[in-house]
């Protein structure tokens, strides 16, 4: 595996011109908000750096992240990225199966100990590790085992990064994120449900070129997760002008107005969807008319409801309000009756006076 052809040779065989390759490196640089001066470095790194071994572990996941990363707009280039790394283990993409597949993983771990990159998608169940096993090995064990010799871990998708859908209330499997289990290795979180394909490849490219990118307090590369959807959304002018869609397919919805009132989580969600978009920049959920779910954030499944605006209380407040009305009324009646009783007592104790009874006896 280590002696796969270098990228430059692959490019020649696939008929990718150098010009097209540099164009790709340029777009990658701009997507990561790097200066154009970085482009040669990216090109050089991608072309010439030794191709590290990558072990992709899939745990409690839906395979959406893999689907996304392979649903790329320029398969040949993305493919190249896969050829700039040595993908030694991946359930969906590998040719081997069964014992042979596990053997490939173990071999890569042994041969490149301390230097391979582990990519994880899916959460890890710890309530009963038996909930998710591969070849009889629990996710928990496989992760610990494989991470031991990793140079870095990339948690791809919100499940691996934060627990995702498995972690959502009531979390029956005890699903947790990679970072809950591995504490002694650098972890890059690339959340999203799924993450944007070019974000995933961009992070990998950055890692190959410059190492671990600058991460925010949730372990996400700031290049792709530094701004909120709200601050980059093309519908922001409508928010500022007070023009909101009230329901799906109403005048506002068809007019492309802000989707805050339909539950958009844009203001609290950091992601690149509004700028980088999906499918080679074609669109993203808000542009398609659907409010942002907030899928790059931890616990987004429990954020009160996809169609409940951020400003609306998350609980069952209507019932509570009615209960409070009843309780308050009961207490009010009790209080008033107490007061009236006091007043009646005072009235009963009333000493009818005439003008001669108004002085105090000294």
């Amino acid at each position, binding site marked *: 595996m280590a002696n796969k052809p270098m990228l430059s040779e692959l490019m020649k065989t696939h008929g990718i011109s150098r010009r097209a390759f540099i164009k790709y490196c340029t777009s990658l640089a701009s997507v990561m908000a790097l200066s154009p001066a970085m482009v040669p470095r990216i090109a050089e790194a991608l072309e010439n750096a030794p191709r590290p071994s990558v072990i992709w572990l899939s745990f409690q996941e839906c395979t959406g992240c893999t689907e996304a990363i392979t649903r790329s707009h320029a398969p040949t280039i993305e493919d190249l990225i896969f050829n700039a790394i040595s993908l030694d283990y991946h359930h969906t993409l590998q040719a081997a199966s069964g014992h042979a597949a596990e053997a490939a993983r173990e071999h890569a771990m042994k041969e490149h100990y301390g230097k391979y990159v582990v990519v994880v998608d899916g959460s890890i169940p710890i309530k009963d590790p038996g909930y998710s096993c591969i070849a009889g090995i629990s996710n928990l064990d496989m992760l610990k085992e494989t991470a031991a010799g990793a140079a870095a871990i990339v948690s791809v998708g919100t499940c691996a990064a934060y627990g995702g859908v498995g972690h959502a209330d009531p979390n029956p499997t005890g699903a947790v994120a990679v970072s809950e289990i591995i504490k002694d290795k650098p972890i890059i979180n690339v959340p999203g449900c799924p993450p944007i394909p070019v974000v995933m490849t961009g992070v990998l490219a950055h890692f190959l070129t410059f190492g671990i990118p600058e991460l925010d307090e949730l372990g996400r590369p700031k290049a792709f997760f530094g701004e909120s959807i709200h601050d980059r959304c093309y519908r922001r002018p409508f928010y500022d002008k007070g023009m909101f869609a009230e329901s799906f397919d109403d005048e506002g919805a068809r007019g492309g107005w802000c989707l805050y009132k339909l539950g958009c989580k844009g203001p609290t969600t950091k992601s690149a969807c509004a700028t980088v978009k999906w499918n080679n920049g074609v669109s993203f959920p808000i542009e398609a008319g659907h409010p942002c779910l907030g899928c790059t954030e931890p616990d987004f499944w429990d954020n009160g409801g996809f169609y409940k605006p951020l400003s609306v209380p998350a609980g069952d407040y209507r019932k509570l309000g009615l209960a409070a009305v009843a309780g308050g009324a009961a207490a009010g009646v*009790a209080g008033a009756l107490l007061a009236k009783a006091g*007043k009646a007592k005072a009235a009963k104790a009333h000493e009818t006076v005439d*003008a001669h009874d108004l002085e105090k006896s000294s």
Partner: protein
Amino acid sequence: MSATLERGLNALREQIDAPVASFFSSCVSCGLCAEACIFYRSTEDPKYTPIRKLDLMRRIWSREFTLLGRIAGMFGLVKPVTDDDLKEWETLVYDSCTMCGRCSLVCPVGNDITMMIRKMREGMSASGHAPVELIGAAERHTDKGSPMGELQPALHAQVKHAIAETGIEIEFDKPGVDYMVILSAQEIAEFPDVLAAMSRIFKKAELTWTISNEAFEATNVGIQLGNRDVARMLVQRVVDAAEKLGVKGVISPECGHAYQALRWEGPNLIGRPYKFEVIHIIELLDKLRGEGKLKTKGKNSQKLTFHDPCQINRRGGINQEPRRLMNMIAENFVETDDAGTMNWCCGGGGGVGANERAEPLRHQAFKLKKTQLDKVEPEAIVTMCAYCHHTLDNVLEEFNMEQEVLGLTELVAEYLDDDLNDKNAAGADA
């Protein structure tokens, strides 16, 4: 039986009802009531802020009439009211408030502070904290029929005089007539010419009337004292006499608190509606004017202005009637600023005028009225309350102001188109 703290507190408890509760709940401590109060505005002393005068009642309401307040009271967050508190508040509730009602009109949340002062006084009077002069007046009124004591001889003398002057008969205790007239002690003592005026006007309008020997006094010191037992007893006298005589109505004279007591508080004090109507003399004169039964000749040429008695206009609802009458008989009637509903109190009402301890304060409070009058510079001030009349007479003298004060009924009678005027006019020409 003598006054005690408990009796006072009980009296206050009896007074707290839904309006009072809503008022205390709504007060936001904005202090705008102070800007309307003559006592605050003339002294700039914040202790005269109207709602502050009610703090003791507020504490009782909070501690005993609200669930949350009860709990707060248990933790010592709301203190019970003591006798010392009542003593300290006596000057605030009696000396610095004429119950003029301006504060009730400016409160942004709609508190009727004046009504609450009236209620507060129930607690004060029952606990022995009312001013001695008011207690004295109440005693005299109870025992001798009038706050000025035995006034019957004076009344009879004045009636005799009026009969002689007008040649029109005035009968006491005549049953079945249209109206029973009641008079304020102030009128009988100081402004008795109103008898002749009424006599002539009623004759021309073909109204029959009488005065009751047992219930001729209109003033109700019970209102100023703030004691419903005294107030009720005094109203009952008038009601009994009127119903015994079977009159259609009782005429409430030019007296502020009399109108409040009989027309508005009375039925609630005695617990039932009357079998007769109550009409203020000026209301009646305006009614007669409207019916064409009040004809005047000639007009007064002095520069006149009008002073609205608080209990009759702002607190009583009689606003346009005196003005229509003024326009009938005055050539040069000029209104002051704030005329009508927001007119400034003369400082004499609500028991303040009788209260010797309050004299310096009342003197200061006149400043507001004085400013009004100085701007207009009238030759005479017309009013429709004998006590305002009396107060203004005195205070104008204290301030070396030269205006005269006139009563509206008398002024109207002066221009009445009747034989007496013709005779006088003829006499003048001759």
